[in-house]
């Protein structure tokens, strides 16, 4: 499979099965679009109908043919045998330490932290028991992950601290290592918390949507007042520390139907001094007033291209700025197994709610028909079949993924989005999400080509 596309005057082709990216002159690009494998050594007659000099066509075709012989163009399909082991090891837990929040954001899937249930804070004992559960079920995996999530996890700081300390100790005893991540809206960040998080967290995710007007429209305090003014000085402090000590963090925002000019939000965050930026499309039911709708896609594609072109300029002139969704490592990326396997929800990744219930991931938390058990009694009777179903939902089994040029970069999309927005069917793809994923990949590849110049 070959995917050809044009961005910012560049003619590009991604050879899907090998992952090779080619930058073409227009002639080779035009030829390529007329070819279907298998290729012959002889130049196909039909190419001489193109309005180019015959010798030039012949030369370009011979170059394309040589890539074909090297299996870098129209390279053959391959199938990866995923291991069929009956025990699925767990490597990551999302701990919902607070089903409560001190903001009321317009697009919040967690229902202001309530997750369709009551407001609740996870007790330290539950979190510690979850660590035991993780270590017991991690088989041979050494690098484990725990994500403090909410609601707003800083509302459960005692639990965060107790679990981190306990987790470090338990992991060391077991000859393993846990990387902790925390996602916060920043409202409760004071200097002491900043210092603690910087020291203990492997990664920090800081939620802010971009420009003050955009941010404050969506991200609100129940009592009123600007969330932007409250959080930005603290986020800047934290980001500066992380940039200095080379530790990982992201500022992350969400764009909705109300700010389709989101590249301005990305550059606003860059101009505030943040180097690691993620701004991503909201996922909501189609009838929600903030939802991204089909008719907005062309506008969003243009915006992504604009962002990529400007990023290429800024990066070439030495600016340190990374837009998370355009990060792709073409040379040292993950192995094919990882590319095929996808997000791992329900399998290697599980979510734990405040009372200790287990769900396939944070997006399923509170959906009773997806409950997998709890950390005290372990997996329930339904879990085996459900986890198997999650495991076998991947780019080889989802019909739309099989013919998608982005499959080895995307890994098969978000199961939760399929369940929520595509009528409960895991094997379907969340259409809007896929369209945007494909566009982002094109832009990411464009950026790679530009930076290789």
């Amino acid at each position: 499979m070959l995917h050809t596309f044009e961005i910012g005057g560049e003619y590009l082709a991604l050879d899907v099965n090998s992952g090779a990216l080619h930058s073409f002159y227009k002639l080779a690009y035009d030829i390529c679009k007329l070819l279907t494998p298998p290729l012959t050594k002889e130049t196909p007659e039909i190419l001489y109908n193109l309005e180019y000099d015959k010798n030039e066509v012949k030369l370009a075709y011979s170059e394309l043919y040589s890539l074909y012989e090297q299996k870098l163009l129209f390279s053959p399909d391959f199938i990866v045998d995923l291991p069929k082991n009956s025990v699925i090891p767990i490597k990551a837990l999302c701990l919902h330490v607070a089903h409560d929040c001190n903001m009321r954001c317009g697009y919040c899937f967690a229902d202001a932290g309530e997750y369709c249930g009551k407001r609740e804070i996870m007790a330290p004992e539950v979190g510690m028991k979850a660590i035991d559960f993780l270590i017991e079920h991690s088989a041979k995996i050494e690098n484990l992950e725990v994500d403090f999530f909410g609601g707003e996890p800083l509302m459960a700081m005692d639990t965060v601290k107790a679990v981190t300390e306990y987790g470090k100790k338990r992991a060391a005893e077991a000859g393993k290592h846990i990387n902790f991540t925390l996602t916060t809206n920043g409202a409760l960040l004071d200097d002491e918390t900043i210092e603690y998080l910087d020291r203990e967290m492997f990664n920090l995710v800081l939620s802010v949507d971009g420009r003050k007007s955009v941010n404050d429209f969506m991200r609100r305090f129940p009592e009123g007042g600007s969330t932007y003014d409250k959080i930005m000085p603290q986020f800047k402090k934290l980001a500066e520390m992380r940039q200095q000590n080379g530790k990982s963090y992201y500022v992350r925002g969400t764009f909705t139907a109300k700010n389709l000019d989101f590249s301005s939000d990305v550059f606003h965050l860059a101009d505030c001094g943040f180097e690691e930026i993620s701004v991503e499309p909201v996922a909501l039911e189609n009838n929600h007033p903030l939802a991204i709708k089909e008719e907005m896609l062309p506008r969003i594609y243009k915006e992504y291209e604009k962002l990529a072109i400007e990023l290429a300029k800024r990066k070439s002139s030495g600016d340190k700025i990374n837009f998370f969704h355009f990060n792709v490592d073409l040379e040292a990326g993950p192995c094919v197994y990882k590319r095929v396997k996808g997000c791992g929800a329900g399998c290697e990744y599980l979510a734990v709610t405040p009372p200790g219930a287990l769900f396939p991931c944070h997006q399923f938390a509170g959906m009773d028909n997806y409950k997998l058990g709890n950390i005290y009694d372990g997996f329930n009777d339904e879990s085996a079949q459900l986890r198997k179903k999650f495991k076998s939902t991947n780019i080889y089994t989802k019909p739309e993924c099989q013919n998608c040029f982005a499959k080895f970069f995307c890994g098969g999309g978000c199961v939760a989005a399929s369940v929520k927005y595509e009528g409960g069917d895991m094997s379907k793809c969340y259409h809007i999400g896929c369209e945007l994923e494909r566009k982002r990949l094109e832009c990411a590849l464009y950026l790679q080509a530009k930076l290789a110049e």
Partner: protein
Amino acid sequence: MKNIKTINKKTYSDTTFAGCGECRSSCQSACKTSCTVANQQCENKKRLNKDNNK
């Protein structure tokens, strides 16, 4: 080549097929910074490199 520049020399088939499961999980939902598999790093190779440098 005159008409074509290939950007990456390595391809998937070059990356050792390992599937060891040590790399970070990759959630694509917006509230988790939408990792796709492509923007994850391989922890296995890092380790191999480290071993080579010993």
